């Protein structure tokens, strides 16, 4: 009898030890730049803050990650928590990748505190499928020394931008660099120009849209902007600017640290993207959601709440060159208002337009980037390119 008791209590002890092991929650993300170590810090701080849940994060490159989600949905490996680019969130909500967390939101202190743009990207058909994690937008970087030498002030309008480019462009130096690559990244960079003339994404063949595309195409035709932009990512545009091969560039706050590291002795500053009729910028950023079939949804929710705590969100955004998507965090912090560079982005954030949200956004975006690439390579006139894009968008929306 004693023996059995000893064995039983031994077993009990073992099972107790086993159950005391923290629940493992798998997380996939695509932070791979200077922001990556700061996100890892959020994860390790969370793991250290309690003993019940252990988040293990894995970096998967953005395009690969989106592919893995779709493959995982049909019968494969999925994590418990997934990161998604906010214009793509509605597509994945429609596919059923994310768990509906509407009920969990009720009674959580963060509910109702997010900015409208990032928040709406998480909502699909009235249900909540994720939480915004960070936001960003675009502004104009300029090389102060080059502008001074050419005798130009930072441009505020398209006409001023053309005039500045004319003076700044010389052998080996282009006036402006943007990212015009044929994917979502390029669409992101193209939209401020579309919106500034008063055009909307719904009507890509309007005279205003055509005016915008004609303006950018002319910058290439006149030699003020390299025709290579169609192959440049935003990181490539940053390299052009940092090596002095472009006097100005359009880029986001996450590249502030890259410019500082790549060109420590260069003098540069920021201003709003020059406007036609109105100042415009586009909202970027990432959201996190719980995967629909996660066995540890409660534990995953604990991490999402931790990640969204005002002080956690603030310190990550500060370190990683992003903006907090929570209005209370943004408004209570002095950081984004006092830093002279971030102030410019903060101003741009006020009119940064979200992409979508629409489950068919990837197709809409594909029509848009095909159009500007056709125009930039002089394959089609801006008018024809945008007319064809509108046809594709109309078709995608009715299907």
């Amino acid at each position, binding site marked *: 009898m004693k023996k059995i008791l000893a064995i039983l209590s031994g077993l009990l002890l073992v099972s107790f030890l086993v159950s005391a092991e923290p629940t493992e929650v798998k997380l996939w993300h695509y932070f791979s730049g200077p922001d990556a170590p700061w996100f890892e810090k959020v994860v390790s701080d969370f793991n250290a803050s309690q003993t019940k849940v252990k988040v293990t994060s894995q970096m998967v490159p953005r395009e690969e990650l989106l592919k893995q989600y779709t493959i995982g949905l049909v019968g494969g490996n999925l994590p418990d928590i997934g990161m998604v680019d906010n214009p793509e969130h509605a597509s994945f909500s429609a*596919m059923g990748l994310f768990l509906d967390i509407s009920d969990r939101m009720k009674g959580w202190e963060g509910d109702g505190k997010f900015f409208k743009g990032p928040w709406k990207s998480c909502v699909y058909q009235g249900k909540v499928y994720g939480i915004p994690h960070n936001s960003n937008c675009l502004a104009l970087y300029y090389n102060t020394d080059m502008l001074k030498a050419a005798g130009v002030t930072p441009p505020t309008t398209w006409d001023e931008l053309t005039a500045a480019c004319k003076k700044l462009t010389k052998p080996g130096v282009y006036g402006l660099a943007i990212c015009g690559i*044929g994917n979502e990244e390029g669409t992101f960079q193209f939209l401020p120009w579309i919106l500034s003339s008063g055009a909307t994404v719904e009507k890509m063949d309007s005279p205003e849209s055509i005016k915008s595309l004609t303006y950018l195409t002319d910058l290439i035709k006149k030699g003020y902007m390299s025709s*290579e932009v169609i192959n440049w990512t935003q990181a490539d545009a940053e390299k052009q600017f940092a090596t002095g091969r472009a006097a100005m560039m359009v880029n986001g706050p996450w590249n502030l640290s890259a410019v500082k590291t790549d060109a420590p002795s260069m003098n540069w500053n920021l201003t709003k993207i020059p406007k036609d009729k109105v100042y415009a910028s586009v909202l970027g950023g990432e959201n996190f959601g719980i995967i629909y079939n996660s066995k540890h949804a409660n534990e995953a929710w604990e991490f999402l709440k931790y990640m969204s705590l005002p002080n956690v969100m603030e310190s990550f955004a500060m370190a990683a060159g992003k903006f907090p998507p929570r209005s209370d965090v943004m408004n209570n912090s002095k950081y984004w208002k006092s830093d002279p560079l971030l102030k410019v982005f903060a101003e741009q954030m006020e009119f940064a337009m979200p992409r979508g949200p629409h489950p068919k956004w990837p197709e809409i975006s594909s029509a848009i980037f095909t159009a500007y690439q*056709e125009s930039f*390579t002089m394959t089609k006139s801006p008018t024809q390119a945008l007319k064809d894009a509108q046809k594709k968008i109309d078709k995608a929306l009715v299907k």
Partner: protein
Amino acid sequence: MSKAHVRNGEGLSGYFFVLPAVIFMVAFIGYPIIYNFVMSFQKVDIMTLKSATREFIGLANFREIFSAPELAISIGNTVMYTAGCLVIQFVIGFLLAVFFNLGFGFQEKLRGLMTVAWMIPSTVVALLFKFMLSPSSGIINYLLVATGVVKEPIGWLISQKTALWGVIFANSWIGIPFNMILLSTGLTSIPGELYESASIDGASSIRKFTSITVPLLKPAIYSVLVLGFIYTFKVFDLIYVMTNGGPVHATEVLSTYAYKLSFVMYRFSEGAAAANVLFVCLFVVGLGYLKLIREGEEIQS
């Protein structure tokens, strides 16, 4: 035990031995092909990806992709790319094989060195050529301008007219050593006595080439062309990294187009249909290759 019985038993154990290979093929090669085939007749998009039952919509996916101009462009580019690569790498590979067969001092080492190109992962080659072909900082344009061949650097991968040639150039660089190795092996297997006796009969070197080298090299030529065709026709990573099918579909091939339909626009079943078009092309060529080999074996026996 009768003789027939023994043969039967041997046959059965034969099947037993190939069973693992058959299971492997069915599970890892057959299943995805069948799955893809079925999917190309269903409606699978953002809304229906996860649903348990998928609606069969007949040929609608094929009608959809064939009505869009992109598919014709992709097929045209795939054919151009394959033909361009095959001609360039076969001709240069053949010349190099003959050259290394001449029997000078260190040809073994040189030949070994040349295969390095074939061993480098194609994504690395793609990045290398992307840099080398760049108009602002690429060495190819630098050399062309420095030697006065062109006045202005050429935007090889940026212009729609030259982009396809840029990727053909990069792929040929990989393919030449592959052609050379297979053809050299074929060349060394031709007995030297044949050439000797031909010389005694007074045959010219051109005659020796057309009457001895080419006919005896036929099996090697067939395999190098067919393997080269399959390898080139299904290109994905090289183009994906170098141009991503751009600028504006100038280098769009069937594989990149199918990929974009499925994983950029999430039109999954149309992507499957485009992949099937690619599969059918390769399947036909594969069958042709098997037939050629069988005929070759019959002639030999």
